[in-house]
């Protein structure tokens, strides 16, 4: 600690250089933490799937529906305990920027298959008997200030579901979840009774996709193959996969996105490392004579090395902490921005995690150390007679 004034006074001496280096590191940590938070949020969605649930859709794409009788045929397959039909409604609330996921489903079967969707009994009862009723996630309710009993309108963006007027809904229930048990549950979605859609579209509706509850997750592969085999030679072949794989398909870009974002983070970190190392080198080169004087006074080479590394570490720590603080601020603002916010709100756990924070600080420390390493070694090796001769 007794050397702290010496270290801090050197950092203050050229404060513009110190500040710009700290800010460069902060930007690096900000970028890393923000990108990592996005990657984590995307990957987190993959864990939402339940291993005892399978999803069956049209073999080609979700765009094509399945015949309604597939429900009974799939329910007859050994190992399938229960099924629920789902439709992506694509409803828009007032403006496309108000995006949230909204799906038609079979209320009773849906609640049976998704124990993570928790509704108070009275709200559940109401929804099961209300054709216009909808249940919405707690976060979605908070986002639009909706309460039970409120009404709202959605107009679908999918042509077959556009019936010339918006669909009006009543909030019958606001669902929540046990976040400890089901941390990845999406609380930003809305579900309504498919019969409302079925009738409004003139009973001309296929199945968007089917979710099956199976008896044993160990049998998932075999049951999937049996289901797809059942429809293999039909006009409407199917593709059945685990719910996790289905979600991964939804965010098929996730793998590449992770690679891309990590690549950007690495490139930025490397650039900042070069900038910081260069700055530290200049700062130490300017002090060669001073290092000679300190060594003459009895400062050991090891102590000189430690002093220079301490300066670099302080820059790293301050840069890291500032970077984290800015990240926290940015991550609070981002979900409120139009477009970007709509996308981010779709990820239930979007926020700076303790792991990302710790990694960010660790990277800042590492960058500081790496940047200070060569200047510190130069100071360590500096020969007194040579440094003093430069006077």
């Amino acid at each position, binding site marked *: 600690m007794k050397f702290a004034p*010496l270290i801090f006074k050197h950092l203050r001496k050229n404060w513009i250089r110190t500040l710009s280096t700290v800010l460069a590191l902060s930007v690096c940590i900000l970028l890393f933490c923000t990108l990592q938070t996005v990657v984590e949020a995307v990957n987190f969605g993959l864990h939402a799937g339940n291993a005892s649930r399978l999803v069956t859709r049209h073999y080609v794409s979700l765009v094509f529906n399945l015949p309604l009788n597939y429900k009974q045929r799939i329910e007859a397959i050994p190992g399938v305990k229960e099924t629920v039909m789902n439709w992506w409604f694509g409803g828009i609330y007032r403006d496309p920027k108000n995006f949230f996921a909204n799906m038609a489903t079979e209320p009773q079967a849906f609640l049976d298959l998704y124990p993570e969707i928790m509704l108070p009994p009275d709200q559940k009862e109401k929804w099961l008997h209300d054709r216009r009723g909808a249940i919405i996630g707690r976060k979605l309710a908070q986002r639009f200030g909706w309460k039970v009993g409120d009404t709202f309108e959605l107009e679908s963006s999918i042509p077959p579901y556009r019936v010339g007027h918006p669909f009006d809904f009543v909030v019958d229930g606001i669902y929540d979840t046990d976040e400890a048990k089901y941390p990845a549950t999406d609380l930003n979605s809305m579900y309504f009774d498919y019969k409302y859609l079925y009738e409004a579209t003139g009973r001309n509706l296929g199945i968007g996709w089917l979710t099956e509850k199976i008896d044993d997750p160990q049998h998932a592969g075999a049951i999937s193959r049996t289901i797809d085999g059942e429809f293999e030679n039909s006009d409407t072949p199917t593709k059945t996969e685990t719910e996790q794989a289905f979600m991964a398909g939804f965010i098929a870009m996730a793998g590449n996105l992770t690679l891309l974002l990590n690549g950007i983070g690495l490139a930025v970190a490397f650039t900042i490392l070069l900038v910081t190392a260069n700055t530290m080198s200049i700062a130490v080169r300017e002090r060669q004579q001073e290092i000679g*004087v300190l060594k003459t006074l009895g400062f050991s080479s090891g102590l000189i090395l430690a002093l220079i590394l301490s300066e670099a570490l302080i820059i790293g720590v301050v840069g890291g902490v500032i970077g984290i603080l800015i990240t926290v601020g940015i991550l609070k603002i981002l979900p409120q921005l139009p477009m970007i916010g709509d996308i981010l709100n779709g990820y239930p756990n979007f926020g700076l995690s303790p792991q990302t924070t710790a990694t960010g600080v660790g990277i800042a420390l590492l960058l500081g150390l790496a940047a200070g390493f060569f200047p510190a070694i130069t100071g360590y090796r500096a020969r007194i007679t040579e440094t003093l001769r430069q006077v």
Partner: protein
Amino acid sequence: MSTTNTATTTAVSVQNVRKFYQRDQIQIKVLDGINLEVPQGEFVALMGPSGSGKTTLLNLIAGIDRVTSGRVVVAGTDLGPLSEGELAKWRSRNIGFIFQFYNLIPVLNAVENVELPLLLTSLSGRERRDRAMTALRIVGLEDRAKHYPRQLSGGQEQRVAIARAVVTDPTVLVADEPTGDLDHQSAEEILTLMETFNQEFHKTILMVTHDPRAATRAHIQHHLDKGVLSD
């Protein structure tokens, strides 16, 4: 740390010292068989033309350079066998170095500069500050304690540098052209100060100088020419 018992009255003993520098393929002979004994409490001036090896000899005595051959014993310690770390520790306890260009640390004020060598001791912060202020008082700059080097004249800077050199109460003071960058009056003040440390505090002083007037303040004068010492 190895210690050799030489006569208690000898502060510096240089025995048959040679120093060569290697520049590419060429070997440059800087000191050639130097023998020098400096008694405890003496004030010695080393004179000679540029390139005669004065500063090199001073550096060897101060333990900041190594001999090619021969032996240097200062304050009872043979410097040859000491490692770099041991030499650094030894310098901090036994040597006070005064540079021609003062070499104060620009980001530290006067008292902090003087306190610098004390950071290597186990003294408390308060004790360090008290000692540094005492040293500044002795050189007459107590009222300039908070001034930075850029706010001091050359003579004042050199006095701060002297305070820094003596603050650890070293056995030997080595001064490399201490008046070389000063006007006549400031140079006189510095030499008077060095005399004070020699006479009142019994410090052994080795001073390299070009200036014959400065050299007259020393009790003993040695001349170096082409690496060879002559009285």
